[in-house]
């Protein structure tokens, strides 16, 4: 079963993801114009794009655990998942800037003053170097440092989920599920990949 899935996955080229990625965006915008997103399409589009971006981020973080624990090999899709996540988060940010807030003076005030926006912006800023180095040339050039840099995916996913939790009104389950999943993935893998050496404890005692 596992081998059959892996064989099938090998036949799918990674570019399929890049080709499919914009299709939901086109569909969402179209729905917005014809009323499919309800009577307040700005907020609906903003939320949809953000949620898809978060889902893709988490999907990217699932690649290694899926290989380790279930033997499924999705490694060749990981870069595409990350870049498409960045694409969605960028559109999410643009919808917020251009259609939602509209008032330039308020944008900076919101970033500084509103914790959920500060957290979301921080996650986006941390994603920029990751997106810029998601290519073979950067992997070669950066060597071991590339791995350290891309460890940032873990805090980005946690911050993204936290951004969702912080903007919810009342006690809502859905954003908490995303945050739990993000923290679970960090617990599963993030520690092992911690890029800086951990100081051995109790050394003085031993000597």
């Amino acid at each position, binding site marked *: 079963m596992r081998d059959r899935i892996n064989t099938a996955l090998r036949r799918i080229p990674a570019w399929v993801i890049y080709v499919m990625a914009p299709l939901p965006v086109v569909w969402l915008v179209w729905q917005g114009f014809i009323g499919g997103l309800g009577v307040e399409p700005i907020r609906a589009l903003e939320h949809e794009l953000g949620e898809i971006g978060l889902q893709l981020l988490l999907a990217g973080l699932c690649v290694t655990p899926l290989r380790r624990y279930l033997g499924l090999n999705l490694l060749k899709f990981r870069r595409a998942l990350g870049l498409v996540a960045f694409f969605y988060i960028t559109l999410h940010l643009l919808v917020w800037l251009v259609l939602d807030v509209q008032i330039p003076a308020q944008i900076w*005030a919101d970033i500084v003053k509103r914790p959920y926006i500060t957290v979301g912006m921080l996650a986006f800023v941390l994603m920029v170097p990751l997106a810029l180095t998601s290519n073979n040339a950067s992997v070669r050039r950066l060597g071991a440092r590339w791995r350290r840099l891309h460890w940032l995916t873990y805090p980005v996913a946690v911050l993204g989920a936290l951004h969702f939790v912080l903007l919810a009104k009342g006690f809502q389950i859905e954003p908490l599920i995303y945050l739990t999943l993000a923290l679970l993935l960090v617990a599963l893998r993030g520690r092992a990949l911690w890029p800086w050496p951990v100081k051995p404890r109790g050394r003085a005692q031993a000597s």
Partner: protein
Amino acid sequence: LALTTLPGGARAQGLEPNRWEEITSYNNYYEFGTGKEDPKAYADALTTKPWTVTMAGMVDRPGDYAFEDIMAKMTVEERIYRFRCVEAWSMVVPWNGFELADLLDLAGVQSGAKYVAFETAYRPDEMRGVAYPVLDWPYVEGLRLDEAMHPLTIMATGIYGRDIPNQNGAPLRLVVPWKYGFKSIKSVVRITLTDTEPPTSWNKANAREYGFYSNVNPEVDHPRWSQATERPIGGGFFAKRESTLMFNGYADEVASLYAGMDLSKFF
């Protein structure tokens, strides 16, 4: 007095009501789910006939009042009001309803009463959203007695001359146009007159963000977002934000209720 000045005043402001479709498909009614479309999708399950409103506390004639009996005694009129949600969107709604003051008079408010407490129906079998602890159910709200007796404050039973749909709070809901929408409690089953400030659901959930008064005020931000502007529903992708008005545009009528109060403290 109310009849001659208020509804006419609302019309004189040149308010263009939102479409029926907009008013009835974009709702916050967490008892049916936290999504804006959830109430329209799921509120059909609510039984609104028969319906009784229990009048209790400091009233001369406490008891259960059947909805039909209330309606037989009330004068229903149209009120075109601005509706401003705490989430910074807004609509204009042509309500049909009667003044809350008339309903309170039916029960006879006793002289010591200072506040009015309201409660929404709690029906786990009919309200799929109450399975989740989004808020501490049942939903409760409250007004100071002078706010409740103000002629702008109504109990709405219709929209555009039709019975109010379940997702908008059938069969009767409070409408206080100068306060954020969540104060206008839906599907009311209980009204209690008290001499102490009653608890309110959003204040219980997060006192830092939601005060007892919750008057629309562009100068007092919600801790998580600005209240200076609002987005009118119905403008599609290119809806322009508009400036939010003090007391949602009803300052001339209600500002005197809060004379001398620090509105950033009593938010």
